[in-house]
């Protein structure tokens, strides 16, 4: 089983803040769909940002795709191969139209305009979003925005998907749709989510981020899934 990403003894604190991560370890292998839970402010988003080098740990090693990554340059490849879907779709859909937004990644990877457009068509068709091609991004609903951000990341053909609260702002229908899409993807993924049911549907392994470290999910939770678990 090949190891895609591993974090070793990661420590991190925001400037002037309390430690967020202290001695965190994590390994993601090919084909795995790892879910990470934890309460608000536990550091889940921070963890994903460290993975793609948007934040640098004060201590510890980030190993990704077979090499240790320490400097900004090292992370260019990581960002291409590990597609991060942000918590707030408005932060990620910065281009005026859906097609432009989805093409942004491929164009940055050096694809020609034509190649990029071919990828856009293909990805949108695959996610059943072809009708949105020329829509204005800021006029999409929350759920539609979320699906387009996923398309934009998939257009870069990443080996790993990093999803930060992908079910935020999704209604039941779109959540079912997203679940189907994610289950159909071959990529390994790390999924941060508060949503119990969703996590259980997707993940092959679940960890909790508690006090700056990842721990196996306490067993009482695995059993006790409530029939009335709220959707949010």
């Amino acid at each position, binding site marked *: 089983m090949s190891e895609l990403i591993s974090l070793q003894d990661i420590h991190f604190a925001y400037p002037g803040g309390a430690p967020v991560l202290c001695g965190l370890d994590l390994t993601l292998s090919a084909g795995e769909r790892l879910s990470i839970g934890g309460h608000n402010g536990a550091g889940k988003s921070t963890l994903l940002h460290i993975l793609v080098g948007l934040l640098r740990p004060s201590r510890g090693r980030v190993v990704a795709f077979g090499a240790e990554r320490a400097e900004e340059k090292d992370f260019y490849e990581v960002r291409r191969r590990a597609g991060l879907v942000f918590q707030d779709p408005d932060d990620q859909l910065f281009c005026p139209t859906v097609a432009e937004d989805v093409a*942004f990644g491929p164009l940055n990877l050096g694809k020609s305009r034509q190649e990029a457009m071919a990828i856009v068509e293909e990805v949108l068709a695959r996610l059943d979003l072809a009708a949105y091609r020329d829509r*204005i991004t800021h006029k999409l609903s929350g759920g539609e925005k979320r699906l387009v951000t996923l398309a934009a990341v998939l257009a870069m053909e990443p080996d790993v998907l990093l999803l930060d609260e992908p079910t935020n702002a999704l209604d039941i229908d779109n959540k079912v749709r997203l679940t189907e899409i994610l289950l159909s993807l071959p990529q390994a993924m790390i999924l941060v989510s508060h949503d119990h049911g969703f996590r259980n549907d997707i993940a092959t392994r679940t960890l909790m981020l508690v006090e700056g470290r990842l721990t196996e999910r306490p067993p009482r939770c695995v059993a006790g899934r409530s029939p009335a678990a709220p959707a949010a």
Partner: protein
Amino acid sequence: MGHFVSAERRALRDTGAARRTLLQGVDPRSRILAAVLFAVVIVALHDMALLGIGLGAALLMMLTARLPALPTLKRMATMDTFIIFLIAMLPFTVPGDPIFTVFGFAATWQGLWQALEIALKANAIILALMALVGSMEPVTLGHALSRLRAPEGLVHLLMFTVRYVDVLRGEYLRLRQAMKARGFRAGTNLHTFRSLGYLVGMMLVRAIERSERILAAMKCRGFTGRLPLLDELAFCRRDAVFAIGLLAFLASLIAAQTVSPA
């Protein structure tokens, strides 16, 4: 600046959109150039009748663009109070033949004409602008400006602004609602000014933090300092017909002006 409160200025969300109209088929670049040309010609006219025809043409454009008539006309007529004040004072400040006097100040025909001229020009131009350009998506405006060789940075700035106006306006409205729920009522007092200042400051802080997250998202998708734009604008026969028609109209206005003795 103290214009009428009723001036409803909403988000960019409810602009233009994809109404199917005759104008919709005309290339956005032609529409922008047409609006500019129209404005330049109208500003250069002096004959009242010709200006009247110009305003008529602008009204026709509004109907062709299928802009909602009443709100559009209301927007057209909305001006800064100081401009209205300025126009209203003209009859009394331009020397000439008196019509009547108010408190010893004489109103003159010449002043009245000049006031009327400004009002006609301002309304005709702004109405044509709203009909020709305001009826397209703000995003399309950006694409068209880019093709018209507007500086790249300016187009990108416009695109980002258009993208985030609604998001920030939503943030602002929710904060305003929360203030209202805590009994806030804007008045002419220090407490109001301080609170609104905090509100503006907080909006700026959040805006800059959002822009940091946006930049992070761009980096994650391989951003290297280049912002690509995609569009598919192309001239077609409809554009040619539109261009010829408009040029002929504007040329005849200028011809009429040079021929007429005024």
